[in-house]
């Protein structure tokens, strides 16, 4: 039987190291992805995710299951991500959509030139990569809080109550925040949205 996050954390609190391993396994990918989309650097995202796990471990003795484990986990991650974004604001790279393709091969996520030879339809591949780049840039351009809300809502599928607690706002404020974020994305991605709506 699968133990819940809270049960695992309570077992960690009781000194069970194996339960911490299970939590690590369960949340390493969601955390790294969330942080990657926040800080835009794979290496930095991994460093921050490691710090999140370390803080969880450090806090094990004081852990009380008063809230969902994911709320607590992503609150730590959000605080670390926002601090990191503010600290590294000067490192923001404004990558133009017209920039050479290799410029996007930042962290090995999409190394287009490497796969070009293997791809049967290079033109189709380039179109797909351009779409992804456009989507990623649209998310990156969102104000920090809106970005956190979208990432937690869309990719982590947290409920409104949890996201509101993480961002320390009311649920209605969160709904407005998300609405504004989706409005901005709708405008930023207008050509792609129009294509999708037509189909």
């Amino acid at each position, binding site marked *: 039987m699968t133990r819940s996050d809270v049960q695992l954390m309570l077992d960690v609190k009781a000194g069970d190291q194996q339960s911490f391993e299970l939590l690590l396994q369960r949340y*390493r990918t969601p955390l790294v992805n969330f942080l*990657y989309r926040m800080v835009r650097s794979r290496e930095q995202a991994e460093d921050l995710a490691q710090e999140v*796990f370390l803080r969880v471990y450090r806090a094990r003795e004081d852990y009380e299951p008063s809230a969902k484990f994911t709320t607590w986990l992503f609150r730590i991650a959000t605080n670390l991500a926002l601090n990191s974004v503010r600290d590294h604001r000067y490192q923001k790279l404004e990558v133009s959509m017209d920039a050479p393709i290799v410029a996007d091969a930042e962290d090995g996520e999409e190394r287009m030139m490497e796969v070009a030879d293997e791809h049967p339809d290079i033109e189709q591949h380039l179109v797909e990569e351009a779409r992804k780049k456009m989507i990623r840039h649209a998310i990156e351009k969102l104000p920090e809080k809106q970005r956190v809300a979208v990432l937690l809502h869309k990719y982590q599928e947290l409920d409104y109550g949890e996201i509101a607690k993480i961002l320390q706002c009311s649920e209605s404020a969160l709904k407005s925040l998300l609405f504004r974020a989706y409005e901005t994305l709708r405008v930023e991605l207008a050509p*792609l*949205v129009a294509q999708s709506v037509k189909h």
Partner: protein
Amino acid sequence: MSCEKMETRILAYVDGRLKESERAEMEKHLVGCSACGLRVNEFRAVAGLLDELPVIEPSGAFNARVRALVAAETQKRSGWLAWFTPSPRVAFVASMLLLATVWMGSMQRPAPPIDAQDLPVVESSDYDVISSFAPLSDLSQAPDDDSNDSDNGQQQQQPQQM
């Protein structure tokens, strides 16, 4: 339902997170409002586009690095705890020292406060007695072998000549 009220519910509708009653109310509005209908379709399209982003996997060394951090943390804590954990001998010596300090402190009686009124006051009439005191007069006659101090010596001897 007004179009403004739609704004707070549109995303939950697209996600399928609305309650049944709210969803029914929403759909009733959408039948008669093409603008909101278009907005719903556009939000659905945005949600679909967000799904296109690939999921990245943490590097192979990720777990090992977390384990190393946790192990270092455990070692650090146990180091501090060992420092604070009292050994029986140290605890005995420390408690004996403390007892001895307290005992010695209690044995020392505080000195009685000095009453300024009890101090003898030199009356001005005693000055003549002190100034004519022979041993003091001898002391005031400084040797003359140091030429630098000759002026001072003369100044000190002047009252005697008078």
